[in-house]
């Protein structure tokens, strides 16, 4: 089975299991008493956020190895991870406000996760724009790798600055949205969702990687 088809099958499996997550989260997971049904947005929001950020770290790692090993496969992987990371970041940035409005009262809050993800999203957009803007593919790969490494190194600084800003400017919290210790049934749903998002990441990256191969073949690279 070609790489593209393998990717498609994994993605389809992921989407099917996602439906399972939906059913489990919506119908078979208890409603959180303080936040109400909207709390369940968490089961999609947080796994997406984890992968949005992990994807960027992987872009950075792929970029470092590409610059030193010059293996095109690493560059294709970095490009794929960046595009998929952007998709997941988009999910975080849309579900975040939808969850924030009923819980915090406003569409946008400069809370740690949303702010970090917003900056991450800009990083991704910049990366994709740069890739598109450089005509020569080899040069583009090298430039993108430079940006990717810088982006990966920026992530801890984003977290640090946002953390500092928030601890000295506590926001009026009526409810405590981040519940790190989830009771059994909720934890199971959350883990299930994380697993599905992992599967989707893999499926998407394989497909996007295969797409790069296809484009290179077509351009006779």
């Amino acid at each position, binding site marked *: 089975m070609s790489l593209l088809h393998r990717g498609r099958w994994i993605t389809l499996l992921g989407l099917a299991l996602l439906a399972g997550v939906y059913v489990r989260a919506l119908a078979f997971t208890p409603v959180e008493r303080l936040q109400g049904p909207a709390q369940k947005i968490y089961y999609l929001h947080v796994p997406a956020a984890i992968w949005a950020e992990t994807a960027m770290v992987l872009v950075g790692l792929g970029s470092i190895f590409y610059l030193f090993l010059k293996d095109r496969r690493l560059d294709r992987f970095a490009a794929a991870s960046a595009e998929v990371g952007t998709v997941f970041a988009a999910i975080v940035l849309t579900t975040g406000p939808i969850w924030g409005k009923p819980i915090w009262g406003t569409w946008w809050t400069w809370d740690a996760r949303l702010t970090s993800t917003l900056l991450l999203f800009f990083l991704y957009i910049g990366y994709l724009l740069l890739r598109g803007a450089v005509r020569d593919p080899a040069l583009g790969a090298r430039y993108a790798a430079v940006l990717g490494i810088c982006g990966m190194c920026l992530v801890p*600084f984003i977290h640090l600055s946002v953390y500092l800003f928030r601890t000295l400017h506590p926001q009026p919290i009526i409810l405590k949205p981040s519940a790190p210790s989830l009771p059994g049934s909720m934890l199971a749903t959350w883990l299930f969702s994380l697993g599905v998002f992992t599967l989707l990441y893999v499926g998407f990256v394989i497909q996007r990687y295969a797409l790069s191969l296809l484009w290179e073949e077509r351009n006779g690279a």
Partner: protein
Amino acid sequence: MAELLRQAWAVARKDLLLEFRTRTAIVSAVVFTALVLTVFNFGRDPTAVSTLDLAPTILWVTFTFAAMLALNRAFQLELENQALEGLLVSPLSRTSLYWGKLLANLAFVAVVESVGLPLFVLFFNVPVGRVLLPLVAVIALATVGFVAVGTLFSALVIRTRFAELLLVVLLLPFLVPPLIGAVQVTARLFGDRPLSEAVGYLKLLAAYDIVFVSLASFLFRFTVDE
């Protein structure tokens, strides 16, 4: 090491000589800074918001613009005279090329900020006398961070179509952490708060500078090697 510095200085000197011979870029940057400060004044209601609350933001928005202007004109110079090709053919090491450009860009921004700061103090009546030294230190720390990353990214966008626009888009997320640090420290300085409150942010700024100056100087060779 001495060789690196010598070469870097040669590059910086060339850029700065070109710059100050024509003077258009530096004059327009200074005028632009004054303009931004003026607009800020007309944009606010002094009875609703105290100057001191807004002051750090105003200062840093202005300085960020100044840094962006410096970075933009930096590679315009290269494009116009195809000077970049000339530099690459010369026996200069890539790292000293970076340091030279960085020094030239920093000098440019420093001039703009040296005019901008007194203007800011004048227009907004902000008492900076007692905290001048730490203020200058914070300004220097943050500016080095912006310009270090910006100098590297200038090399990335130089051959793309919407280079100036792309530079801003790429740079934006990288400006936020040092900006947060700079604004918060500045706010404490203006508010006469003890610096001990801002230690976390100062460490952030210092760490950012160390990491990104080293990283940018190392990665620069990948942007110019064929």
